[in-house]
Each structure stands twice: as structure tokens, then as C-alpha cells.
């Protein structure tokens, strides 16, 4: 949601980059004692709580949006965003991300800039996919298409998308990363984990950046895209 602009002190820049997990490896839990949450385990937790499978999606989405930023839940989005590219590829002319928040840019020592509708949060409790651009009738490509024309992009800043997933999504598809890089969009990924002992208490790990180049080239320092989340249940 936030990053510092190139006006940051170089010492600060170097220190922050070194501490930021920039490698695109499988995501981790907030605590080593936790177990990455698979879709199958999520379904089992739901069943044990009397929640039917038809409710698992909305429950996981609510959990993710509510907990990813402790004390500052991401509001549920209720708007459609036109996507000409998705229209061309699949005949669906819009996308509806789960959460939409502004991008906040701190220009040290200048005033903070805010760009509306430039960070998307999307939850996926899925298996057998790494969320390529074509997933769900080009929904993922639609997100990137919209963010690529967002107020942040128009002002040559970096919009972002944060995928909050079950652990089946080990990382995000390389094709999605390529499309994001092309548009200067940062792709963040966070997985859900189950707290030990297994009783249905869940926590999102830390959101990790999968394509640091979008920030490094213009010399920006990303901060605060969420996670570790607060503990919650579906």
C-alpha cells in the first residue's frame, strides 16, 4: 500500500532493500510452528465447523480481507472496473477485485501523495493453478489491465496487486509476473497458515514481493502491503 520514493536517503534505501524478501520462493507462514493451509484442509475446517462447501469462498475472502492488515481491514470492494483487454479475450468487460485501496507514496521530505484505486487485494482458495493471466476467464489479466491504467500508473508510480491464497498456490505464475512487469505493477503474495494445534485458527503470513525490479529500477522502497495478519477464523 505504501512505498518511499527515490528521495529517500541512500543509507536507508540500502538497509531496507537488504531486509525485504525479494526472492520469488514459496511463501512462508508468520511463525515456523504453523502449517501452510491447503485448500483441502480449508474445506475440512469448514466441514468441522458446519460450514457448507458453497460458503468456503466467501468465508476465506472475508477472513483474508479482515485480517491481512491488523487493525485496518481492507474494505470489501463493490465496484466494477472496466477492462477492455478482458473484454477482447473473454467477452467479459470488467473485473471486480475483492478489495481496492489507494496507493500512498511518501516523497521524503515532501507531502504524501495518494493515488486512488491503485492497489488490489484478491483472495484465492484454489488448487491446481498458479493464477496465470487466463485464470477465471482472464480475470487476472483484467486486474493487471485495470491497474496498468490506474491513477498511479498514469502518474508513473507503481500500482500493486496482493494475492492472498491457500498454500496450494506456491507462487504466482511467471506469465502473470511478465504481464505485471510490462505495466510496472508490483505483485505481492501471501499464504494462509493454520496455527498449531490445529483448531481452525488461521493467520496470513507476510506479503512478499515477487517482482522487485518494478521498484528497484526507479529506486523506490516498498513498505506495508500487509501481513503477518491478525489471527482469525473462517
Amino acid at each position, binding site marked *: 500500500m505504501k512505498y518511499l520514493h527515490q528521495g529517500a536517503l541512500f543509507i536507508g534505501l540500502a538497509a531496507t532493500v537488504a531486509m525485504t524478501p525479494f526472492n520469488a520462493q514459496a511463501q512462508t507462514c508468520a511463525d515456523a510452528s504453523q502449517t501452510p493451509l491447503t485448500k483441502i484442509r480449508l474445506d475440512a475446517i469448514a466441514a468441522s465447523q458446519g460450514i457448507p462447501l458453497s460458503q*468456503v469462498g466467501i468465508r476465506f475472502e472475508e477472513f483474508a480481507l479482515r485480517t491481512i492488515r491488523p487493525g485496518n481491514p481492507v474494505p470489501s470492494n463493490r465496484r466494477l472496473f472496466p477492462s477492455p483487454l478482458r473484454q477482447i479475450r473473454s467477452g467479459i468487460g470488467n473485473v471486480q477485485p475483492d478489495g481496492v485501496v489507494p496507493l500512498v507514496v511518501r516523497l521524503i521530505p515532501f507531502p504524501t501523495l495518494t493515488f486512488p484505486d491503485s492497489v488490489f487485494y484478491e483472495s484465492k482458495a484454489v488448487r491446481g493453478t498458479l493464477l496465470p493471466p487466463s485464470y477465471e*476467464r482472464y480475470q487476472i489479466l483484467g486486474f493487471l489491465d485495470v491497474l496498468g491504467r490506474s491513477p498511479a500508473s498514469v502518474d508513473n508510480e507503481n500500482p500493486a496487486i496482493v494475492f492472498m491464497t491457500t498454500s496450494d498456490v506456491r507462487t504466482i505464475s511467471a506469465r502473470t509476473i511478465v504481464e505485471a512487469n510490462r505495466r510496472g505493477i508490483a505483485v505481492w503474495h501471501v499464504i494462509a497458515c493454520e496455527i498449531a494445534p490445529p483448531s481452525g485458527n488461521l493467520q496470513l503470513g507476510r506479503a512478499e514481493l515477487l517482482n522487485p525490479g518494478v521498484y528497484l529500477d526507479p529506486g523506490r522502497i516498498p513498505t506495508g502491503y500487509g501481513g503477518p495478519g491478525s489471527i482469525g477464523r473462517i
Partner: protein
Amino acid sequence: MSIYFVRAEGVPLEQRRGIETIDRNILFILVRASVESVAQAFSTLKQMNVWVSDAYEREIDIHNESTFVFRFRGHPWSIIYKPYTPSGRIYLTEEDACSVSESLSTSVIYYTGSDTCGTIEYHLYSNGDCVEKLSFEERISLEFQSQLRQVETRQIRRDAYTFTMNFICEQDAYIPCFVAVEDLTAGQHTTLGIEDLMPNEVERMDYLAQQ
């Protein structure tokens, strides 16, 4: 009331058919019968002891397990909608759809789509019998059964979303998109309404709940 009707611009609601979006988690039961008879059947089935008829834009008291039965003006299907609440213990199920179909001797569609889970599913019931059923999990599974037509699952697998959208259109039905941004809490006194859904677009909406 913090429920929003989300729709793309263009076709007037009266003429709109198909699925508004596949980008949300949605569950509806559509019944080819009047709001009055659907509300009666559903309240009996689920032991709903609160029933406010023709409640759109009227002040009501919110109780537990809030459920709406309504019909858009110009549409042939009544819709059962139960907003998600964390405390809810009653869910809309395919068994409910089957029961309502049987008790009203009519057609019923159970539809659920989840973009979070990459799934889409529908069941079509006629007089209590399931005559067509599709269950799809993207890149994982596809099941299709029909007593009405012969379609190779291979054909559907190519684009199960479009297949489902076409099915809904062929039924002259419409799956709307409602987003509830705040929970309905028992004890609230509020005006029953859905943001961006004009009163003249609603033929009738009834409120059901448990006290």
C-alpha cells in the same frame, strides 16, 4: 442497509439476463413462482417465523437469519437471497432448492459461483427432480448430468463459464451481484433496501427471518 447491487452499465435491468459477474462469491436460489408462494414455501421449510410482505423501502426490524425473497420487475423468476453473516447458521442448499421445487411443483435453479475457489455450479430442478446439474472447479474437475440434452463434458470443459452463462440465459434467468459490506445485525431497525436498486425495478421483496 449496506447491501449493494453491482451491475455493469448498459442493458436495463428488466431486460438483463445471464450472470452479472463471475468475479464474486454468489449463491442464489431462483424459483419460477410468485414471491408470495416462494416466501411461504421457504419460510415453512426453514421455520422462519418472521415474514414481512412487500417490504422494499419499508422500515423493518432485523432478526436472525435474514433472508430476502424478491423478483425484479419484468423477470419470470423469484430469487431467494441470504446475505452472508458470520453468525448465520442457516444456509441455502441444493436440498432447499429441491424441496421448494417439489412443494411448489415448479422449476428451481440453485446457482453458486465462487471466484475465490474457482468454482461454478448449478442444479435445475423440475417438480422436485434434478433434471440438469453442472459442477466445475477450474483446472480440477467437471461434472455434468442432464436429462434434457446430451452434451459431451469435453465440450463444456473448454469454457464451463460460458456454458453456464448460456444456460442461465436460456432459462430466461438473471443472476445478480449483491455485495454486503456490513453485517445485518439482529435488533437493528432499518429501511429495507439495496443500494443502487431502484424501487421501480423491484416487483416485490419480502423479508424472512427467525425470531
